[in-house]
């Protein structure tokens, strides 16, 4: 059945012609290339390289960045790109999020002019893949206590430490690595052939199977002095990147939810039990109505946030709310859609379980659901509850 996106509040009427064209371009690509091949990619545990090429050719990587051959699109367009990619699979959106928001953005905002010119054109074309190293095996929600260190050795820096749960790590040409230099968090650009650097792939995932997840290991990793990001110090650097990525997730989750809703609706209309389509029963209609309600609220939230991003009037807590809410509702919709599909819902003939498993990761990465609650709790009360210290 042809995909027809839920648009109960006519969001489309609020989009520009350009935004609609960008959305349709990505939607068509996802429909033609991702959806027919995603289950095989998951079984094989690979992110097909032709998808990297296609994303570069479409020109959607680093969507809201301008200059250095970057697209210069609105945040609304960036959100729509994430939405359509994640309707295909969270792994595809993750690739684009990491490349654009976590790898390109810090170079674009905090890099030197030489760094921008060296990396950004190739990255927006998809010819260079980037990753982002912040999380460590023992420091996830608490990156400020990271162990990874950089030492100034006069004519070079020496990195030691390890990062974990790094999307794109093994296939990356460069990594944006956050490490402490004299006790201060700084960003460094590590290239894949730098001595002492390795990025082994993590295996055994039940989630984001079509996405490359890696460790980054730095063992006396020697990098030139011009690879430090000169424009930022402290957690502001990685958190600025995460704000953009979390924004993209708030839209991407709508895509995953739409995919599950669409499948559930079609299934409910065609599945006959007790001589009637199960869509004609009140309990199923109640579930579908709840899905419509939550997707619609999520769309309006994401659109308003995107307008704020374009206007520069946003605050980080609004991004936390949107990321947390939209992933939460998408995960619940996936579970509810599985319920509507009955036993069939566990088959890879349907997208449901794949999205559900993916969303478990999405709920956790880029700030866990609970951490975003704590961010909002601090905003409400003025009291931080991340640590026991007041």
């Amino acid at each position, binding site marked *: 059945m*042809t995909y027809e996106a839920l648009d109960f509040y006519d969001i489309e009427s609020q989009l520009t*012609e*350009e935004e609609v*064209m*960008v959305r349709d*371009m990505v939607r*068509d*690509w996802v429909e033609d290339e991702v959806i027919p091949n995603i289950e095989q990619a998951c079984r094989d545990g690979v992110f097909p390289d032709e998808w990297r090429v296609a994303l570069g*050719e*479409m*020109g*959607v990587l680093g*969507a809201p960045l301008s200059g250095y051959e970057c*697209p*210069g*699109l609105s945040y609304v367009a960036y959100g729509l790109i994430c939405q359509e990619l994640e309707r295909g699979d969270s792994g595809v959106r993750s690739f684009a999020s990491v490349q654009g928001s976590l790898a390109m953005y810090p170079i674009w905002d905090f890099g030197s002019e030489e760094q921008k010119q060296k990396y950004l054109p190739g990255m927006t074309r998809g010819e260079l893949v980037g990753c982002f190293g912040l999380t460590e095996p023992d420091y996830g929600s608490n990156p400020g206590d990271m162990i990874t260190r950089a030492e100034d050795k006069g004519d070079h820096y020496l990195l030691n430490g390890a990062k974990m749960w790094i999307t794109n790590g093994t296939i990356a040409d460069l990594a944006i690595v956050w490490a402490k230099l004299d006790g201060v968090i700084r960003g460094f650009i590590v290239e894949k052939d730098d001595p002492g650097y390795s990025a082994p792939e993590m295996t055994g995932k039940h989630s984001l199977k079509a996405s490359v997840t890696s460790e980054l290991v730095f063992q006396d990793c020697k990098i030139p002095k011009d690879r430090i990001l000169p424009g930022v110090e402290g957690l502001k650097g990685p958190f600025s990147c995460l704000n953009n990525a979390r924004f993209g997730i708030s839209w991407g989750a709508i895509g995953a939810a739409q995919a599950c809703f669409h499948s559930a609706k079609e299934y409910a209309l065609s599945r006959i039990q007790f001589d009637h389509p199960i869509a004609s029963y009140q309990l199923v209609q109640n579930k579908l109505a709840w899905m419509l309600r939550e997707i619609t609220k999520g769309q309006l939230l994401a659109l308003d946030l995107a307008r704020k991003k374009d206007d520069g009037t946003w605050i980080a807590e609004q991004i936390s709310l949107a990321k947390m809410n939209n992933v939460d509702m998408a995960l619940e919709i996936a579970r509810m859609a599985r319920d509507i599909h009955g036993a069939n819902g566990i088959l890879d003939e349907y997208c449901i379980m794949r999205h559900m498993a993916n969303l478990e990761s999405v709920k956790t990465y880029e700030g866990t659901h609970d951490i975003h609650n704590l961010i909002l709790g601090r905003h409400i009360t003025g009291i931080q509850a991340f640590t026991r210290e007041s």
Partner: protein
Amino acid sequence: MVEIAVLLKQVPDTTARITVSGDKVDEDAITSWVTSPYDEYALEAALQHKEVAGGSITAITLGPARADKVLKDAAALGVEQLVRVWQDGWEPLDSIQVQAALAVAVQASGAEYVYCGKQAADTNQGSTGPGVAEIIGAPCIVEITDFDVSGPTFTRSSATGSEKVTVAAPAVLTFSKTTTELRRPNVRGIMMAKRAQIELVGGEVGTTNVSVVRHASPAQKPPGKTFEGADSVPEVVGLLRDEAKVI
């Protein structure tokens, strides 16, 4: 250098729900419109022709304001000039009127080659290409299934299989589905399309000789029959052979 005109028709998406209201298709109820698929193959061939020979392409459509979208989509793929042919009060036009209006725009564009689909996905008339060719006094090669832009040469069906032909400009070429993969737009093209201007042209199209009396939906298919269990296989085979006559 070659000047090419591509005729693009906006049609309901092939999966769009069509409703007939008051003996007429309710166009306002159609939520999704697209470029007619055969026209997309014509556009792809035109783009490839231009890439080899140089020159420019004018995309021409006939329709109300919503048809601007097919022109903008073409601009996102690399078409330089966009022309929409329309005048309030025209609807409905018959095929000859459509051809006349399009021919005026084609001639104004200075095109040497006119590319279009062999038929539109909504009406399936197949009359536009040959009709425009007749009006502008050009030969028309129809049902092209393959092409080589370096000639250019065009492959079409023949009584014995297929034949490859070449034709001197001016000429009209109507395309079937070709083996060529259609290109996708990219963000850079979409940015160009945003800035592209659409020229609106109207004019006299004469009176219509054909009037549509009424539209009707296809007849409902009779309900299917359900069989269960292995014991029903002989009966199913018998019905497929004797009643449906498909085996």
